[in-house]
């Protein structure tokens, strides 16, 4: 009797140890980007820089332009992001007749459900919150830059003044106060949509079939979804 009880406690104890990972609520945040609505004005990049004091030359969010053209051969892809798209886009030296499709793609931290950056941090300075947001603790980060290497989306940057790694937080200080992220607030065309997974306007978008995530083969399970982008975006 005594031994059985002991075994039960042991099993229960190890079970709780295994499930120590915080249970994520269903109220996780989701970000949807409609590429066809993005006009590449760069207001989001500017707003982000002001809101989060992002240092010069570093980007928490940036806008890329994809131009797919053909000179008779199979598709060529031209990608650019001058100054992260902060000051808009110049003309490109491609004949308009030859362009098959062209569009802007805003990029930011994907706040993956299985973040490779969190997995490699040696000191637990970066973690995923209950709301599904991946954060960095600046007063804990030792600056080893390992998480930057692990991020397949190039979303993390090294802050050379504070000598720590920094990244998009989806404006955690705003969304927890019931506001939207700065980039979403200022977007004039509504290309950026933000909300909880259970929100109606998010559910509507997610029910559509042409929704995509970036680099699905890496199994990072991003929480940023893209609409109306081509195969060439990754």
């Amino acid at each position, binding site marked *: 009797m005594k031994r059985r009880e002991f075994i039960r406690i042991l099993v229960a104890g190890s079970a709780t140890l295994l499930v120590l990972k915080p249970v994520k609520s269903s109220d996780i945040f989701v970000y949807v980007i409609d590429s*066809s*609505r*993005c*006009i*590449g*004005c*760069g*207001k989001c990049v*500017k*707003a982000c820089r*002001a*809101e*989060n004091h992002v240092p010069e030359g570093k980007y928490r969010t940036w806008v890329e*332009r*994809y*131009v797919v053209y053909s000179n008779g051969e199979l598709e060529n892809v031209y990608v650019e992001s001058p100054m992260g798209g902060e000051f*808009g*886009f110049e*003309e*490109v030296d*491609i004949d*308009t007749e030859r*362009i098959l499709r*062209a*569009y*802007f793609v805003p990029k930011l931290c994907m706040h993956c459900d299985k973040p490779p950056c969190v997995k490699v941090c040696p000191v637990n300075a970066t*973690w995923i*919150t209950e709301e599904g947001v991946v*954060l960095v*603790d*600046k*007063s*804990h980060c030792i600056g080893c830059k390992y998480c930057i290497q692990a991020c397949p989306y190039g979303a993390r940057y090294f802050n050379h003044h504070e000598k720590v790694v920094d990244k998009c*937080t989806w*404006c*955690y*200080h*705003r969304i*927890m*106060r*019931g*506001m*939207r992220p*700065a980039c979403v*607030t*200022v*977007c*004039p*065309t*509504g*290309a950026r949509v933000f909300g909880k997974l259970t929100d109606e306007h998010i559910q509507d978008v997610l029910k559509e079939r042409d929704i995509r995530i970036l680099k699905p083969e890496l199994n990072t399970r991003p929480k940023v979804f893209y609409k109306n982008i081509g195969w060439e975006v990754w």
Partner: protein
Amino acid sequence: MKQVERSLIVFINILIIFIIAIFGLRVMGEEVYPGYADRIFGVKGIYGKSGEEKELEKEPIHAEGREDCRKCHQEIYTKSNEGKHSFDCQTCHGPLGEHPSTDMIVTNSREFCLGCHRSTIGRDPAAIRIVNNWEEHGKGRLCVACHDPHSPWFD
């Protein structure tokens, strides 16, 4: 065998000291480590809080949206709400910041308007009204001379 015992005792003592140091520092919290080490090196940090709390200490610079501006600028609010420029005020006016005490600056240059309305490769005409002949259209004049930025008209 005596030397093995002695060396093991030394090793175990080092190990115990090491483990005590680790757990001691953990218990004392991050005010002590990395707090003290950082202060010696002149690094300012925020210690003794959960990471989420540290992140929440930041104050938003951008206001949530149009509704905040409405409190004082009701007239412009209603005007822009009816027009095409019904997006957030801070898109053009910049972050609210400490607004009532500091001025909000907005440029009314042609370049500023054309930043969005010029025709560019990749810009979808369905998403925004594009001025195709922007080099000729209203040449030499400001856009705001004819178009009210809060409620621009279209032909």
